[in-house]
């Protein structure tokens, strides 16, 4: 099980209408990795995430999560997902922190099954781990951006995931909260959770992740830790500028 990659893309092509968004992308992320994906606006970062999450299916090629094809809904139970714009959820949405976190157990429940005490315990554990247990009875819209982000991370952790995927997690979060947030991600990674962060904020990300993938013009380039020291290399990718390195199709 340990040898199976956490996330694996094999010769993935994806078309949206007549536009070919991704051409023959192949890469894998090993279990326990802390990876980041950067790329300019419109490069398809969020679409790539949706493919990995199984929300979209590739035009051709295969995507596997812990060896399971994302066409199978059960593959999604391995992934905890924190979407973009969670800090901007509807202010009038009437839900408590506890309800939102508990909703993370939904993928693990069959249609006619109710939440059991094990689900409530998993939600409580996720809230304690994320440091939001004292806020459990608070309404979502009463929280700050940073607190709300922790709620959605706790929601993702309630699924007991092997992989945590975060889409632009630091948007709308102040600098102090960002620092605490990355510290928290490091703790989760140290606990064995594979982490994949997609962000436009290359500068912040390059100091946090162990490996970086750069998405540009439908292709993915891999950057190792040593490459990360070459700030210019990364920034050129993120800004959509020409670069010299050739795309690496298998990482």
């Amino acid at each position, binding site marked *: 099980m340990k040898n199976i990659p956490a996330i694996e893309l094999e010769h993935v092509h994806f078309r949206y209408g007549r536009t070919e968004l991704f051409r023959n992308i192949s890469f894998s992320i090993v279990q326990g990795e802390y990876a980041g994906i950067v790329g300019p606006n419109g490069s398809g970062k969020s679409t790539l995430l949706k493919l990995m999450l*199984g929300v979209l299916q590739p035009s051709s090629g295969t995507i596997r999560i812990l060896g399971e094809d994302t066409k199978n809904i059960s593959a999604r139970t391995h992934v905890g997902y924190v*979407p973009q714009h969670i800090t901007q959820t509807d202010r009038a949405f*009437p*839900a408590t922190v506890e309800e939102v976190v508990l909703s993370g157990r939904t993928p693990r429940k069959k249609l006619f099954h109710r939440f059991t005490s094990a689900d409530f315990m998993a939600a409580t554990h996720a809230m304690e781990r994320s440091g939001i247990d004292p806020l459990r009875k608070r309404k979502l819209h009463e929280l700050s951006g940073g607190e709300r982000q922790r709620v959605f991370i706790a929601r993702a952790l309630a699924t007991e995931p092997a992989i945590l995927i975060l889409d632009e997690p630091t948007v709308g979060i102040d600098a102090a909260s960002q620092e605490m947030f990355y510290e928290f991600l490091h703790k989760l990674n140290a606990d064995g959770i594979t982490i994949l962060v997609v962000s436009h904020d290359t500068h912040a990300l390059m100091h946090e992740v162990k490996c970086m993938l750069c998405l540009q013009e439908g292709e993915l380039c891999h950057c190792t830790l040593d490459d990360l020291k070459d700030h210019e290399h990364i920034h050129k990718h993120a800004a959509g500028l020409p670069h010299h390195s050739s795309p690496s199709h298998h990482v």
Partner: protein
Amino acid sequence: MIACIAPLIGMFLVTRRYALMADALSHIAFAGVAIGILTGIQRVFSALVTAVLGALAIEMLRRRQAANSEALLSLFLSGSLALAVILLSFSKGGSTNITTYLFGSITTVTPTDVTLIVLLGLVVALVVLVLYRQLFLLSLDEELAEASGVHASRINTILIVLTAVTVSLCMRIVGILLVGALMVIPVLAAIQITRSFFQTLMLSIVISIASVILGLYASYFYSLPSGATIVMICLGFFVMGLAWNQMRRS
């Protein structure tokens, strides 16, 4: 039964910012009533079928991104009203009791209507109970729901079909023009008072039941139209909820 299912469905419409859907579907149901009057088909049945077909058409166009959701609802709302008026112009004398459909009247409800309301109402309540977790996730964030394995398009379709059924069932009591209010206002009133999603759902049902009972009593004793009286009482609850919320904040 209608006091229970109207806010039950309304809760998910309000939280999904789909509140206008109830009004659009009630106008489509009105076109169905006009078809029933013209063809002699049982009117609740023709309204039900037309509303469900209209709901499916709205969802199909929304998915194809033919227009934004708000514009689509407006299009169906005015289009179906125009169709109903044209169809009614062909009927000879059949449109004389149309105000009972427009504004509701409990005295004209037939035993067939009652059977249909009870049976389909139970189906609506059961489906919401089974899909509660999925509907909650979809209301919270559609992308998150899809990533969690929820078939968003399938659940969306089920939700608007349930809305169409609920609208068709409620229209005899509160009327086509006011059915949206019974689905939306109790939820808005409950949101002012409660903290959790589940509490809001339960309180909105309580408010809806209280409004229907009080409204029917008031309409009987003061010879008022039942639908409008029920909606005015719902509004009263909303104002009280709003005042309570303001007091709590201050």
